[in-house]
């Protein structure tokens, strides 16, 4: 393989080379330093005069004497069944002291878009055991449902609870968790690792760790490695894979860093104009394929800078993903775990996975009714602050009360509490029964007759 020593300029993570043979766009590049270490990069721009290479590690040690080898192929990663239970670096190298991965296959990490015509319709209800998700923002197989959080909130804890408890009731098919950490601290990483070990989840998991002190640009490839692994496990081995990506905010920062180094015209808040497309190329790698076993379900986690949901990162994410679970600081301060605010949360695929044959016939109506009641009760809290409780009508007082019990009984649950969907829905009915029946305008009379505690014959639950 030819080696070039024509480096002309190095700026941030980018290396500019003069005159080379024709080099392919997107090719993998190896840079051999004077001391023999090898660094990897990718071609970002190629012409007959100039080649721009983006380095995935630090550029420390790279100089005009560095040899550059073009491999002639896109970045591929070795994948195999035995990756399960392994811990890899953000660049895909084993860091658990175990042997190298013996590849069964080498796959292009950029992945290809699933033909929309080949996609299957996601409709398998995933029970996470968390009421605010199962009841009001249901997750289904093949969905991408991010957690929008803020600094200092227990989003990691929630993600772990979901990873641990998630199951499709009645299904015995193989499942796996692919966990990709981008720029999280060692402490956070340990938290995840300990929990995986404590619960025995590690043997079904593949872990990619890019820590806070690892090179930022490596974060560009970490999620791609994780998703390539997930796709392999799902579509080649027929497993149901849950991918957790944390923290997407760090990924986007790395994207911005490269954009700035390339002197691109920045978009909103300095993030590159192609960030939407770039994020879509990650998030869209979730789904199921018609007539094939296996699925990729994604739970990306991102921390909203300044808890601002209109910040470009959550904003663009929300436009691509099928809803979002919003973790709320106010609820957290009230000591409620998991502090999920159901009002701005949403699962767009919920209606496909609930109702008769999936969960229970009353699911949607119960969910809508609770949602409406909580939303109105929550609004009234503002009013109470001004006029006091006494000025409220009877109906308003009841709604205000409903908002409180909703938070305390429905939202709040234990870290190890795994509620079945039946539990969640029955709990919902119990809460709704505190309101007069005439107020339940979103539920048909039939369902009320069948499920409302007041009419339900037999033992009352809880």
């Amino acid at each position: 393989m030819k080696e070039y020593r024509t480096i002309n300029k190095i700026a941030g993570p980018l290396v500019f080379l003069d005159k080379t043979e024709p080099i392919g766009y997107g090719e993998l590049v190896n840079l051999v330093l004077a001391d023999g270490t090898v660094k990897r990069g990718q071609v970002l721009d190629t012409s007959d005069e100039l080649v721009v290479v983006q380095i995935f590690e630090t550029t420390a040690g790279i100089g005009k004497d560095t040899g550059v080898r073009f491999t002639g192929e896109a970045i591929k990663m070795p994948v195999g069944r035995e990756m399960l239970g392994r811990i890899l670096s953000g660049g895909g190298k084993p860091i658990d002291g175990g042997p190298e991965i013996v590849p069964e296959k080498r796959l292009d990490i950029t992945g290809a878009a699933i033909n929309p015509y080949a996609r299957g319709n996601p409709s398998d209800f995933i029970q996470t055991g968390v009421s605010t998700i199962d009841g009001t923002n249901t997750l289904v197989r093949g969905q991408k449902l991010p957690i929008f959080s803020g600094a200092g909130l227990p989003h990691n804890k929630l993600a772990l609870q979901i990873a641990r408890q998630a199951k499709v009731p009645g299904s015995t098919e193989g499942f796996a968790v692919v966990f990709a950490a981008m720029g999280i601290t060692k402490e956070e990483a340990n938290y995840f690792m300990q929990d995986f070990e404590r619960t025995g989840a590690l043997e079904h998991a593949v872990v990619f760790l890019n820590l806070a002190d690892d090179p930022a640009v490596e974060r560009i490839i970490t999620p791609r490695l994780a998703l390539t692994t997930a796709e392999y496990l799902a579509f080649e081995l027929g497993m149901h894979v849950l991918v957790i990506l944390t923290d997407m905010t760090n990924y986007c920062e790395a994207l911005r860093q490269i954009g700035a180094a390339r002197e691109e015209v920045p978009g909103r808040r300095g993030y590159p104009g192609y960030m939407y497309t770039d994020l879509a190329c990650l998030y869209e790698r979730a789904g199921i394929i018609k007539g094939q076993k296996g699925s990729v379900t994604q739970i990306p986690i991102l921390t909203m800078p300044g808890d601002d949901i209109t910040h470009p990162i959550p904003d663009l994410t929300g436009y691509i993903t099928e809803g979002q679970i919003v973790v709320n600081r106010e609820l957290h301060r009230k000591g409620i775990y998991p502090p999920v605010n159901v009002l701005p949360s949403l699962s767009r695929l919920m209606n496909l996975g609930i109702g008769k044959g999936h969960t229970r016939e009353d699911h949607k109506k119960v969910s809508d009714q609770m949602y409406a009641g909580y939303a109105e009760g929550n609004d009234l809290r503002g009013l109470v602050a001004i006029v006091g409780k006494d000025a409220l009508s009877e109906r308003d007082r009841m709604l205000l009360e409903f908002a409180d019990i909703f938070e305390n009984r429905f939202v709040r649950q234990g870290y190890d509490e795994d509620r079945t969907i039946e539990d969640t829905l029955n709990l919902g009915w119990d809460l709704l029964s505190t309101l007069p029946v005439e107020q339940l305008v979103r539920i048909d009379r039939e369902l009320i007759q069948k499920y409302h505690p007041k009419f339900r014959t037999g033992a009352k639950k809880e």
Partner: protein
Amino acid sequence: MEVKEKKTKEKKHAVLKRIAGPVVTAVNLDAHMYDVVKVGKEALMGEVIKIQGDNIIIQVYEDTSGIRPGEPVENTGLSLAVELGPGLLTSIYDGIQRPLAVLVDKMGNFIERGVSAPGLSHEKKWTFKPLVKSGDKLEAGAILGEVQETNIVHRVMLPPNAKPGIVKVIKSGDFTVDEFICVLEDGREYPMIQRWPVRVPRPVREKMNPTIPLITGQRILDGLFPIAKGGTAAIPGPFGSGKTVTQQQLAKWSDAEIVVYIGCGERGNEMTEVLTEFPHLEDPKTGKPLMERTVLIANTSNMPVAAREASVYTGITIAEYFRDMGYDVSLMADSTSRWAEAMREISSRLEEMPGEEGYPAYLAARLSEFYERAGLVKTLNGARGSVSVIGAVSPPGGDFSEPVTQNTLRIVKVFWALDAKLSQRRHFPAINWLNSYSLYLESLNDYYDREVSPEWNRIRSWAMEVLQKESELQEIVQLVGSDALPESEQVTIEVARMIREFFLQQNAYDKVDTFCDMKKQYDMMKAIKLFSDLAYAAQIAGVSPSQINTIKSKNELNQIKFIKDYKPELAKIEKEMDTEFNVLRSAA
């Protein structure tokens, strides 16, 4: 101006010089703007978008990884065009009219590259029934004959740029789209297929003013903010406000004969929902699958960005083609913001001077050109056809002041303001009745007088007034509580609530409520108005608002929307209401 082969004089070999993502540079290429070129050894499809000295800048519709400088480039000499003819309906295309089903056959479940696939099947035979005979004099756009494509009759036309001529031979029988079915005296021969460059609007004889509403079956749209056939509407909404559901409802239920749905930069799973749902949906008028009158274009967000840019043009050209047959076509573009972002991405790769928020300076021009292709027209063959365009806009952070929303609002006549607050309260469709508007109301008045009821216009204004009044009153209620309001205004609050919850809220997932015709809308609103009249009368007679609120039958009104054969039930409720008020009044 049908697409013709241009002669390309090749001197030196045309080769690639630079590759940077979806934009590549070629040299020694004899090219014109918007020529379609084949890029690299794999002959990836691209389009010339800039000429700068010897450098020809090309946007490529497929992934460019691995392409090297020095690889060949070939100019086809054609503009980016779509194939138009029998076989369009029920098709599902990507942004450059490649049928997705064919792509699955050719390259599996994932979109690979370098595969071309024609938009129409060139093998399938269609039964052509001529409607002209030899000796007939034909103008451009004349209808030659018919093909029963699905339950829709596909009218085969002379291309809109053909010169007039006299029919010499017209065939009848089964033909592929490429076989000649018509020969003119001067020797010109025509097959059923036409090719038309997507960036050029198809000509019409005359554009007319829209006077007929596009009935959507959605109460807040038909009732309060109607769009006319041939009109333009925008649905801007922050994410999670139910934009996609609203658009899909429109595609399913609007009374256009043909639906073109463009998923531009859409979510893959949502597109799948459309793809799996449409074939099973029944057309409320014909009982046939809805898909039989639909063309879908799906270019998901992770498919190549240049093809996303083209998808909107591909869609509207197909819509115009059906319009030219004399059909009412409704086109949904979801979302034009993604389209604008594709323009921005290409523009920044071209290192063009950016305008507002990095969007190219020509954003406004491109948007208005696109929406201007909508309209109610007299076609070249004298028929009446229309293309109604409903564009979704996805403003970042729900901020309507951003350039795409603003430039769109300057053009469109109807604005359906989706509101995240409403959807959080599960008020669906989450269209804000205070911020939305329709500029078609006046031109449609005659239609409502004629087709619904002479009362309709008055009753609609009444409802709008009540809602407006409520929003003012709510401000006071927020401060002092509802008990502090004068009694008549407490009645207003209750009536407004009924309009909101009973009339405006509509359940897209309920079998019956998903579509509500104009007559039913009128009856429902009339019943609420009846309550209102009775309530005010009772209040003046001394009945207190809290007593009025105890009227049981009014809450029964909410069930009307879920009942298919609602008339007997409605009559019963109205009667009960009257009785209950009589009791109250006599007690007062």
